[in-house]
């Protein structure tokens, strides 16, 4: 009896093990907290989640965009008495390649996710037959457009950078020296081999053309009305994701850089006549920053939600002077510059909301204020949206394009529309020599400086202004931020167009 029990025990054990081992599933354990490839890119929900994932790396880097586009330019300087070196490098236009804030890795993370999305998007149609072809196109176009915006940012910011247009996560196809197409696994390539495979553009013009062509092909694919697969997008997604009006505005801006003013002017019409976008009211203008978005005003922004996912950016840290709120006061407005740029006649909402003066401290108010009086965001809840395109972009780009088409009246009108919408009185034709292109460029870029102050645009505006006039306005304006000997040093340095770009490690 005893022996029997025992042998059955042993038998059960042996049997148990053979059953376990014969079962092929014994070793096939899948991760619990992640989705494996076999289970992903199956449905529209997967596609949509992957699409949202493309924006996430950019949303972590908006403080860098502030450094790249504003700290280097004329309207911003350091807030601290003894500035933090890596921040100061931007303010004094002396950025080193080791500077962590000059790292573009997150932009390439977005590019990689866009590339993967574009290669996978059409696979999903085979799996999810509820998915409409037009929605598939929309997902494709969204990825392509976001990638174009990334390259556009790299193009205007960095010295050299490679172009990656396919999904290299798993394998890389390339043509070797013998002219054969080789396909190799990324995991098997060494860093030096990978470096050798990176394709650097011949010149910047090549990238300009790529960006332009990409945005042109997107224009017809994105739906006009935020409806994908017959589902209306929630409000946050309308502005937190790319849309057709954004594509048109972006296309117009690229066209202006490329000197194609006719096209630019035409593209601007799309957002301008779209009834979802307008210049809005002066009263609602601060809502773009105090709320996550403002209907009519907002077009494309990087957004944050604190209440359920605790997403924040570092703009409060960078701009607030309140240490207990987590403010490091890295950056502040360059007072003497903004005093000449902003309007103090009448009530321009942008003058009262973009910055504030507290005793000794002038602060950038857009990202920390909750109204245009005193209310501030709570401590450590930095969720102000980062604007990439707003409706006002279309109006001011239209003015710029029409000016170069010698349609002075139209340019003049579009500027006045913006002025009026913000609480200023219209310019009268007799006040301004509006047929003088130089004068009008000054008026337009000043208006842009007021509208888009501290939104990471000023540096690029100065680049464009210089390009349009053929004069190095950037060097002139940026050096005006400094005084004494530094002023001339910076001026001399920025006369070289090469020094407008950040170095790459």
């Amino acid at each position, binding site marked *: 009896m005893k022996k029997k029990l025992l042998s059955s025990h042993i038998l059960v054990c042996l049997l148990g093990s053979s059953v376990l081992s014969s079962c092929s599933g014994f070793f096939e354990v899948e991760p619990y907290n992640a989705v494996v490839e076999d289970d992903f890119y199956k449905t529209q929900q997967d596609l949509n989640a992957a699409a949202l994932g493309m*924006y996430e790396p950019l949303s972590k880097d908006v403080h860098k965009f502030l450094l790249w586009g504003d700290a280097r330019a004329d309207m911003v300087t350091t807030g601290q008495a003894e500035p933090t070196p890596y921040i100061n490098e931007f303010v004094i236009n002396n950025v080193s390649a080791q500077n962590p804030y000059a790292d573009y890795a997150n932009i390439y993370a977005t590019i990689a996710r866009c590339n993967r999305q574009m290669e996978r998007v059409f696979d999903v149609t085979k799996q999810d037959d509820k998915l409409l072809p037009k929605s598939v196109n929309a997902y494709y176009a969204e990825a392509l457009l976001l990638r174009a915006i990334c390259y556009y940012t790299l193009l205007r910011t960095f010295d050299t950078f490679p172009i990656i247009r396919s999904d290299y996560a798993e394998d890389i196809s390339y043509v070797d020296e013998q002219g054969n197409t080789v396909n190799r696994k990324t995991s098997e390539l060494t860093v030096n081999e990978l470096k050798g495979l990176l394709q650097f553009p011949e010149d910047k013009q090549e990238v300009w053309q790529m960006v332009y062509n990409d945005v042109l092909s997107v224009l017809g694919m994105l739906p006009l009305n935020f409806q994908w697969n017959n589902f209306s997008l929630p409000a946050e997604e309308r502005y937190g994701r790319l849309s057709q009006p954004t594509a048109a505005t972006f296309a117009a801006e690229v066209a202006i850089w490329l000197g194609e003013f006719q096209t630019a002017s035409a593209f601007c019409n799309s957002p301008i006549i779209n009834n979802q976008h307008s210049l809005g009211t002066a009263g609602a203008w601060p809502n773009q920053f105090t709320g996550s978005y403002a209907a009519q005003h907002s077009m494309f922004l990087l957004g944050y939600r604190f209440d359920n996912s605790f997403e924040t950016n570092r703009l409060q840290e960078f701009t607030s002077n309140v240490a207990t709120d987590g403010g490091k006061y890295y950056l502040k407005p360059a007072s003497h510059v903004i005093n000449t740029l902003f309007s103090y006649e009448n009530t321009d909402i942008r003058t009262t909301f973009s910055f504030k003066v507290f005793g000794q401290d002038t602060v950038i108010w857009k990202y920390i204020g909750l109204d245009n009086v005193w209310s501030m965001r709570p401590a450590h809840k930095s969720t102000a949206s980062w604007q990439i395109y707003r409706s006002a972009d279309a109006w001011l780009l239209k003015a710029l394009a029409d000016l170069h088409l010698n349609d002075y009246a139209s340019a003049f009108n579009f500027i006045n529309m913006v002025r009026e919408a913000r609480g200023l009185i219209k310019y009268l034709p007799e006040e301004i020599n509006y047929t003088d292109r130089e004068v009008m460029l000054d008026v337009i870029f000043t208006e842009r400086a007021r509208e888009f102050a501290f939104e990471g645009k000023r540096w690029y505006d100065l680049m464009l202004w210089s390009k349009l006039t053929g004069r190095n306005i950037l060097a002139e304006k940026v050096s005006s931020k400094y005084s004494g000997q530094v002023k001339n040093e910076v001026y001399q340095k920025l006369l070289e167009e090469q020094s407008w770009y950040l170095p790459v490690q």
Partner: protein
Amino acid sequence: MNKTIYILSSFFAGLLITDPLFAQQSDAPSSLQDSINLVDLNPSSISVTGKLYALPKVSVMESGNVGASSVLMLRGVNSINLSTSPLVYVDGIPLRYTASRPTFLSTYEPDRLGFLNPYDVTDISVNASGLLIPKVGGRGANGVLDIKTERGEFGGTKVDFSANYGLNNVDYNVPRFDAQSMKSYLWARFSEEGMPAQQLDQHPIFSATDPVYNNNTDWLDLIRQRGVFQDYHLKLKGGDGDANYMFAVGYTNKDGTVKNTDFERIGIRFNLDYNLSPSIKIFNNLSYTNTSGHYKDFGSDYAVHPLYVASAKSPFMATHFINPNGEQSRIMAGVDTLGFSNPLALVNNLENKNQFNRIDGVMGVNWALAESWSLSSDLSVSYFNLSEKQYRPALGIVNDLYRIRQNSQRSSSEFYLNWNGRLAKSGKISESTNYEGALQASVETYEEKAIYGRKINAGTDDFETLEQGIVDSASNTEFRSNLMTLMAQGAITWNDRVDIDGFINVQGSSNFGSNARWNLYPGARATVYVWGEKPQNILNLLLGYDRTGNHEVRGFYHYNQYYPVNYFGFGAVYLGNVANPDLRPEITDTYEIKATARPFGNRLQFNLGYYYKRTHDLITHKAVVKELGIDGLFENAGTVENKGLELGLSAQLISSKDFNWNMSASVSTLKNKVLSLPNGDVEQSIGMQTGIAKEGYALGSFYGYKVLGVFQSEADVNLNKSDGTPYRAGDYQIEDLNGDGRISTLDRQVLGAPLPEFFGHVSTNFSYKKWGLIALINFSQGADIYNSFKQQMHLMRDYANQDPAVLTRWASESEPGSGLSRAATNDPSGNGVASSLWVEDGSYVKLKNLTLHYEITSGKSQHFFKRIRIYFSADNLFTWTNYTGFDPEVNSLNSPMLRNIDFGAPPLGKTYKLGFRASF
């Protein structure tokens, strides 16, 4: 009747459960194995790791942070991203010594061996390689601690009762300002920062009358306590030849030396051996332990570190609110004007609590079949649950960003089921040659789950649970791993002069993809009895080679994985890991040679060994160019070596009827070097400190800037910050490694290594008639310590109370001080970065334990007791060291990259203990 109960209980236990005792049975005690009989040494540590101090090869660093895991190391460290702690077998049940989940608080790792009462343990074998435990295979790279609990023995019932009571005292004398000198320091700081004299005069802090700022509080004295240690253990042993049993109940309670820190354990254990027939033996183990503990955050989060805050808080502040009439209220003072928490709130109100339940069961059988065949099989089950809680109220405690109050809870469990089967045969090939062969298989499944939740900003401090507040974070993780081992083993003995053993272990793990799942772990050893036949030989020589692995990879890196992430409140997904289907375990090859000499029989044993341990295929993050935009891709690339001499000595110096004197000593040397890292240096950081794995240096070396001095004047400044602007007078002058005139991250260098050059112990055991004296000395030479706590006391970046040495800081060109930088709020020049200033030599010699005991034996058999031993012992009585922190035995993390960083956790302190042990 008794037999029936035994049989029934054994089968009930067996239903749950089991163990491979044969691993020990098949391996005759060899000179490779180091184990001790644990009867004599009873340190006041709650963990069985306290007993390792008297063992060779293993380096132990216990912590005064009660309930925290000791840091163990066997033959160096050999992994960057995986665990480097030894695997532990408790009666054959494997146990990961370090948890794989991140710590609940900054550096507190609950001791995973805390469930085991040291009094239940009869033997600990330290296996530095897999040579003697072939089954270990893919998890043996860090060595194995093989722990056995006591079993029953033939004879009438024996009762052992032991009781211990001890007191632990720590003298927390952190150098710091008293109330008056703190005020003059602050006065100087404020005026250096440009506060005009008139404003200073009116500043309430400097008022001679304001009752809020005119106290004299010794904060450290208010938060410390004398730690009481209590341990009671009752053991029943007996057997009638067919059935032997051991039943033990233990209770342990130890208080820390900071208020409201403690550890409590209640455990029972029942081990049963039963002979079904002369050829069939079954064995069962069943144990249950509950432990609970309260602890504080003595890690890198200095804002709530009670010892730091008590040192840094101004002594002129009061413990309780002072009302406008100058009367002290009953309400505890809040966060003060200088931004510091109330240390009393940190020890009395902020609560971190652990509750741990573990149940283990083993059932096995050994069956001696016909003709020297034997079959054994066992099944073991182990389950534990750990619940961790934190309650952090608002009153008196600084906010954690937007979190005013927080309640967190984590509940985790591990389940483990293992079956082993083994068929063995032994016999003679010829008259002079014996052989032994075995085939073994084992199957194991392991599952781990954790649920974590944190709610914040409840309405009041009254809610100590997750009932109120908003969810701040929540997670639910699960990990499963299956393992199969197939093994063949053989041994030949020729003429009792030569032993040759060999094995092949083939192990498959679900942690890897099908390309790399199965791995081979072979080993072989040859022992030559050069002088004299075994077992009475005088000199033998052993050569060994074995291969082990480290397969604790939990990331499922052989799959493409999409990770969740948030964007604008929506659930987003991205490709977070790119599959590497060829990823395999890290592989360690150990070569060893060892000579054992016993020139005078058993009176003196001397052994000297040398090992060379090379680990390749380190799992590292593959370096890809960042333009590819992917972040997860792991591969096997990297090699590290550990090598050293191991010397052991034991001697019976005097052995007579009345006098006995034994001594033992060991020394192990260690040379660790990272040989290759094709993917480049690997850095890991905690707080402000960084550990690095860099080719040519010891793994986990401290990485930072080398300070050469202080710029005495503006004219002296010859270096720029990274932005090209010059340093200021009073800033540290840092060595400009690349000579570009700018100090940037490129100028960091290796500042020291946390691994000892050699370590060991000397113990002596002397007895005269009924009196006896035991002494244990431990030493460690050459390990550096990063003294983060000391740096914190010299930082001068806020208005913390500081070490009075800051009076010698650079104040102006006319008062350049003697070595410390200028004081500057928020440290704009980065004078507080990790630097060579805070790396200290951590060598020490410690009188670990001194015990005096007296034996009362009963002369007559009718006496109530057989034997009583009374003893008085003292732990950590003396430490000889140049280290300036609390204790050179630093307990930071069981992490190879972040060893020996001293955040100022409580030291072990001196413990005086009185105990007795009675046998009935």
